[in-house]
């Protein structure tokens, strides 16, 4: 594929998007298909074999330990054991250090992509991030070569990562930073006009484009009102590119196919070598921002993979199962009667939603070669500590 890619993506489920709506108004505001999306990566970037889907396509390690979290407090010693066990199982190595060494070199500049957007109720646990930092440092990576980042520093602040992460590790809010590593690279972008917006480009964060050499992705386990779930793929795509909220305008969403397409853009694809999903908490309704504890379980799960599609597929299954158990409609359910413009109603009623969700973005990402979405082909290994 040429580096200047033009992708004409059809929107899966577009027929159901339109179901039950006034034909005149929908013709005015709703494109039947996703528009052409132009992708521009870094020219002549040499793809890495560690890039998505990585060294172990289709393999997902799930470690469950209910005692890892109690009354919202995460146990760092238990998390340490879960992380070690998962790393060894994923790689087949007998030592944790050897396992980490398959992905990270002492000379690497390591980016840790957190998800603070639901803080404080559900965000990447500082205890997990601390253990990842400890493991990376144990390989010889100095703290100054580790950067923990996301788009919005005010969300990072709410979770108190500054205080809770080790000294010397840089913590970066891309959107507001005007110092080293802040801002966006104007030559790397996704360009599409979804709803007639003025700014049609989303640019890649400079810290991803130029600074880090490896990315460890630490998403949370949450449903998402527009994309169905927010997992590895969405955390990377919508946390790396700016101007992404424009892809969904209530009640419609083009998170499918944009999420997967963004993850194919180099160097994001090549640098993203490991995905560690924080399932200490599981948001099964109200994501990504809810603070309503009624919809947040605390199962104490850690999921790990190099294949973001396989891992997100397992996450989607888990959240679907939870919603079914609790009597909430499926994430695939596209009933116009469930749509509300009242965010308060959405946050307190699991049968309501703001958008027609697009969990199909995961399968669409598989078609782009980012991983395995067929559950039957996923090597899902369950462990306990």
């Amino acid at each position, binding site marked *: 594929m040429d580096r200047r890619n033009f992708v004409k993506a059809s929107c899966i489920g577009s027929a159901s998007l339109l179901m039950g709506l006034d034909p005149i108004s929908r013709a005015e505001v709703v494109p039947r298909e996703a528009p052409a999306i132009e992708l521009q990566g870094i020219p002549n970037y040499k793809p890495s074999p560690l890039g998505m889907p990585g060294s172990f396509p289709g393999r997902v390690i799930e470690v469950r330990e209910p005692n890892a979290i109690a009354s919202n*407090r995460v146990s760092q010693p238990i998390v340490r054991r879960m992380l070690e066990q998962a790393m060894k199982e994923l790689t087949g190595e007998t030592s944790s250090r050897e396992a980490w060494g398959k992905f990270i070199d002492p000379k690497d500049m390591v980016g840790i992509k957190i998800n603070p957007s639901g803080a*404080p109720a559900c965000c990447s646990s500082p205890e997990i991030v601390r253990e990842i930092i400890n493991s990376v440092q144990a390989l010889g990576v100095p703290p100054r070569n580790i950067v923990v980042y996301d788009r919005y520093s005010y969300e990072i602040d709410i979770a*108190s990562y*500054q205080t809770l992460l080790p000294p010397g590790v840089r913590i970066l809010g891309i959107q507001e930073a005007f*110092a080293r590593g802040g801002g966006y690279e104007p030559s790397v972008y996704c360009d599409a006009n979804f709803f007639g917006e003025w700014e049609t480009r989303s640019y890649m964060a400079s810290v991803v484009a130029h600074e880090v050499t490896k990315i460890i992705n630490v998403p949370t386990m949450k449903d998402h009102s527009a994309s169905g779930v927010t997992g590895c793929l969405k955390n990377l795509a919508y946390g790396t590119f700016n101007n992404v909220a424009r892809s969904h305008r209530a009640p419609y969403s083009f998170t499918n196919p944009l999420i997967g397409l963004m993850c194919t853009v180099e160097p994001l694809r090549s640098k993203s070598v490991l995905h560690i999903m924080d399932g200490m908490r599981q948001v099964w309704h109200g994501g990504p921002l809810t*603070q309503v504890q009624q919809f947040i379980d605390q199962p104490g799960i850690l999921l790990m993979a190099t294949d973001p599609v396989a891992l997100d597929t397992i996450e989607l299954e888990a959240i679907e199962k939870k919603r079914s158990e609790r009597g909430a409609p499926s994430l695939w359910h596209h009933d116009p009667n469930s749509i509300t413009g009242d965010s308060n109603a959405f946050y307190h009623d699991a049968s309501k939603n703001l958008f027609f969700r697009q969990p199909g973005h995961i399968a669409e990402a598989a078609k782009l070669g980012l991983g395995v979405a067929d559950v039957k082909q996923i090597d899902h290994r369950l462990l306990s500590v």
Partner: protein
Amino acid sequence: MTMEAAKSDAARDWPTLLKDNARRGGQGQYPARSPEGAVWQFRTGSSVRSAPILDHGILYVTSVNGALHAIDGVTGSSKWKFQAAGQVHSTPSISEDRILFGCDDGKVYAVNRHSGAKLWEITTGAEVWASPVARNGLVFFGSADLRIYAAEAGSGRTRWTQELGGKIYSTIYAAERQLYVGCGDGKVYGLDASSGKVLWSTPTGNGIDSSPALAGDLALIGSEDFWFYAMNTSTGEVRWKYETGLGIASSPAVSGDMTVFGSKDGFLYALETQTGRLRWKTVVGEVVTAPPVIGDGVVCIQAGGTFALESATGKVVWRAGLGGTSQSVPVLSGDTIYLASLSGEVYALR
């Protein structure tokens, strides 16, 4: 006002975050009436994640883009602007004619409050988010380089530094002879103010963002371990502690025998200072990280919007949609309330 705070030379000293235990920034005890509308609005051009302070009719506000703004409190017009080299999250403080604040470039700046000219700067090894405090001619602050600094207020010359076990984002309480501060290593420290020697340290279960208040012989502070602590100022012994639903980054405000603080669980808590017994708790937002300010009969807090609660009962008496942040503190000044917002606007409400 505690006995300890009363010893401070009120005109010269600024011993704690927002000057006093009630977090009033040196303003009197005003009732915070329900405002009817905005008198003026000022745009800083970037997010404000610190508290404004008011002195002699001038409002001083730091914004994340590195600017310290001096704004006329009556008209809302800019008097001057000082531009630092890094982002600023530090709430400013005042020491005589100096406005003091910390910066992500690792420096603490002293700026002339009349002209905006830089008087001195102190360089540390990492970002300074804490607010500098001043007492007896010395300025004290902590840095993310793990050190506490003491410097001469007039010259900025460093007197001593003391390394602690973690990054410091908590603002020091400077008593007559001792300093009290929380630390990223989860400990609360008591230090000798003249030398920086660590007199005691008491562990909590997680890092500390909150800044202490002092009431008699109690140091009061919250921790990210979800607990709020009262510690003996001489020994660090925990006298009592109170559990909330999530971490506590909010710094307590104290008035009389009431201690008020917020938690990330969305509640504002009022406890009896001497016993830790709950007087009331009220949900004010999805998350509370800012310190409350105690006025005459009211407690005000910014938590997504701005809330005023009856201090005796915790009942919400009014709320305003303005001031949408959980990181700033309203200034209660007679008939005017000043607010800063996450999006960078500063408002005067009346």
